[in-house]
């Protein structure tokens, strides 16, 4: 099944003279059209003092541009039955709008208007400051967010992966509208953007429409490459947090390779073997559906044995070296020492003996079958095409897929040995104070 790559829909790609890359994926029978704009701008392009700027700009791009006053973007899309949203990551920011196919012109008009000409007024920046603050507060209510933020803060000393895309509290309080406008002006432009359109449309007419709307935009967007290089870790780093919550929780991270590293397919297999998630190759959607994975190693070693109520791993491709993480929530009465020791035993065993042939076969089959339906629907197609394009290229999806099918168990074991080193480990533990609230 799919011996040569992922079964993607046919696409047509081209670039405009101003540097904007365009990917069209028409599907005659689709009742919808999904428009995605991916910027290679994310929290990696921020600096201390303006952390969270990418996310803040994401909010501001809904607050007004020359042809759309405040609230009019939402109104234009939702009033025709469409949906729209955006999200910010360390490496990119994505804006999407899915509409009934006959309304494709609506998102094209919006995106061409706000790509380089969002207004970002002082008044709207100030009003949005409390909204962003509130978004961060909502996340802070969850111990998992606090732990992950601490883990990356601890795991990186130089590289901008050390802060969360939401930004630091202090920066959200102090960043000025002028700083935000400057950030937008520098990085958001045609050279750093990819426009993906998937769904029901005529490709020739739509290509002409895209040229008409986007060609007049000036070539803009400074380099988004990150020059800071994180030094190799020379010892374990640890942190203990405490606060409200229910059960003890921990995350362990190890320095992991960047996307371009040839070890990436083996790292993805490690993630699937340990946690069970097949990420962008999962059945159902790009990130899969939230599910338990009883056949995964961490689940069997921690949840089945009663040490944890939840245990999994997490690794996503990043443009620069990131963290491979394992997280677990202790079962009642189980100490974090015991949980940490059990996790150590699981990864040590994988590094020593490698995966079994049956495990490798299972994971590969899961991935092969999972991708078969991954392009169903215009929104999913727009997501996948843009996601791989913004990280590198659409061909990346095939490369990773083929790599996963090819990597021998021996290489996965070697990858585990290289990855799960004590001196490259970061540990954050969370002990809840336990109160359940007072009237």
């Amino acid at each position, binding site marked *: 099944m799919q011996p040569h790559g992922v079964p993607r829909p046919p696409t047509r790609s081209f670039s405009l003279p101003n540097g904007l890359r365009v990917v069209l994926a028409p599907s005659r029978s689709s009742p919808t059209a999904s428009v995605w704009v991916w910027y290679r701008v994310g929290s990696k392009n921020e600096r201390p003092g303006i952390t969270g700027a990418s996310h803040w700009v994401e909010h501001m791009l809904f607050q007004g541009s020359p042809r759309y006053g405040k609230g009019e973007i939402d*109104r234009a899309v939702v009033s025709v039955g469409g949906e729209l949203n955006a999200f910010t990551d360390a490496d990119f920011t994505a804006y999407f709008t899915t509409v009934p196919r006959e309304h494709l012109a609506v998102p094209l008009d919006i995106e061409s208007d706000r790509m380089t000409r969002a207004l970002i007024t002082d008044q709207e920046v100030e009003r949005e*400051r409390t909204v962003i603050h*509130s978004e961060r*507060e909502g996340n802070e*209510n969850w111990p998992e967010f606090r732990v992950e933020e601490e883990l990356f803060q601890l795991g990186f000393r130089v590289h901008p992966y050390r802060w969360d895309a939401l930004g630091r509290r202090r920066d959200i309080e102090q960043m000025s509208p002028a700083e935000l406008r400057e950030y937008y002006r520098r990085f958001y432009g045609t050279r750093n953007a990819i426009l993906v359109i998937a769904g029901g449309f005529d490709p020739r007419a739509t290509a002409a429409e895209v040229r008409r709307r986007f060609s007049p935009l000036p070539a803009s967007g400074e380099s988004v490459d990150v020059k800071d290089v994180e030094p190799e870790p020379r010892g374990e780093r640890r942190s203990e947090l405490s606060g409200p919550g229910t059960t003890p929780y921990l995350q362990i991270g190890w320095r992991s390779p960047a996307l371009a590293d040839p070890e990436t397919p083996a790292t993805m297999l490690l993630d699937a073997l340990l946690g069970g998630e097949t990420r962008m190759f999962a059945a159902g959607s790009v990130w899969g559906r939230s599910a338990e994975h009883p056949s995964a190693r961490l689940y069997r070693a921690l949840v089945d044995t009663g040490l944890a109520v939840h245990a999994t791993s997490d690794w996503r491709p990043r443009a620069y070296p990131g963290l491979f993480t394992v997280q677990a929530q202790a079962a009642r009465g189980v100490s974090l020492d015991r949980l940490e020791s059990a996790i150590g035993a699981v990864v040590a065993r994988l590094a020593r003996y490698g995966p079994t042939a049956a495990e490798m076969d299972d994971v590969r089959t899961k991935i092969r079958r999972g991708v078969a339906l991954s392009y169903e629907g215009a929104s999913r197609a727009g997501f996948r095409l843009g996601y791989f394009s913004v990280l590198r290229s659409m061909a990346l999806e095939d490369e990773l897929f083929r790599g996963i099918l090819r990597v021998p168990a021996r290489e996965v074991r070697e990858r585990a040995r290289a990855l799960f080193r004590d001196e490259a480990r970061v540990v954050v533990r969370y002990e809840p*104070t336990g109160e359940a609230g007072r009237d």
Partner: protein
Amino acid sequence: MTDANDPMRVEYGAELAGLQVVRQSPPPAAASFSATYVGPAGWGFDPPGREGTARLVNQLIASAAGKYDRVELARRLDRAGATLSHQCSPESAEATIWGPATEWLPLLGILADVVLRPRFDPADVARVRRQVLERQLRELAQPAPRADREMLRAVFPKGHPYRETGLGDRRTVGRLGRSELVRFHREHYTSGGAILVVTAPARLASIERAARRLFGRFERSRAPQPTLPPVAARSATVRSIDLPGRSQVEVRVGGPSVARSDPEYPAAFLANELLGGRPLLSRLFQRIRERGGLAYHASSELEAMRWGGYWMAQAGTGADRWRRVVPMLADEVDRLRRTTVRPAELRVIRESAIGEIPLALESTIEAHDLAVDLAYHHLPADYWARWPGLLRAVGPADVRRAAETAIDRRTAATVVAGPVGQR
């Protein structure tokens, strides 16, 4: 497109010992299939003193079934490129399988195993019990689930299924034994009052044949009847739960509402959409987030079910802002019945609701949800095709009248949960 190929219409098929078979065509070009069993197995049927039973059983049926233990069942699904999900509500419990359309028949066989032959292996029972106990703690300690819980408890009387979230407590879940779980499964994962909805590129006759073979073990049974204490009109109440150390306060305002079968439902649906159901255009979102900058989320929902319903307006905001947000939520709820909506505002909301229907037909997963909803509420086979007409028949006066009964703050509960003791 013929009716049989139109995913907006379903075909009601045979009743197999009381199990209603329903067929839906997948959207054009979709290559996946989905099937859902919904049975009268919600937590409204939890035996007294054994609260939490329905949730445990629902999670356990998807764990291990037939000749497959938990690991083997997971492998079987993975190797088919399929997923199995489960869901429990006050009224019902369901299991859904999704995967390649070419595999619809063997996957339907897995669903039948899950519904009819769960194993309840002792190790699985112990594991699920641990997970439910942890969720109980989380429900009490986290502002959002705690606020939801307390609002329902303030609105519905003791013994009412909608009052609970189905997790039970440490005592009731702690004493549940395997035999009680098996008994609940036998009595509630039945054919009577249950539906089997299949979204597949197969004719109704083929699906009926397959259902008869795979679910043939069902004996004819009658749907169990719930005990529903009356929901008396109460005066408005306010409750605050102090959860120190958290960052955000969750606010809920809610009360009892109409059942899905109520003739006022389309008007109540639009009233809720105006209030906060259509987040970007709705009044709550516009006033609290867009104009006030006071919260990241501000919305409302209307849960119109078989036995009744409830509405809830909600927002998450800072410890220094919640006192400003609560009256805004209340005022917007009151405005629905105090004033008649302008026709232009209603038109935008209504056309938005109608316009989004194609988005529900992007893929099998989304289309299937429409069919399950329709079948569960015994709605006409062409209900979704008629839905735009039903909404267009609703005028401003209808919305105001529906708000009087379906979204009425005079009998509502207000709950704030979070760091409310912090200034």
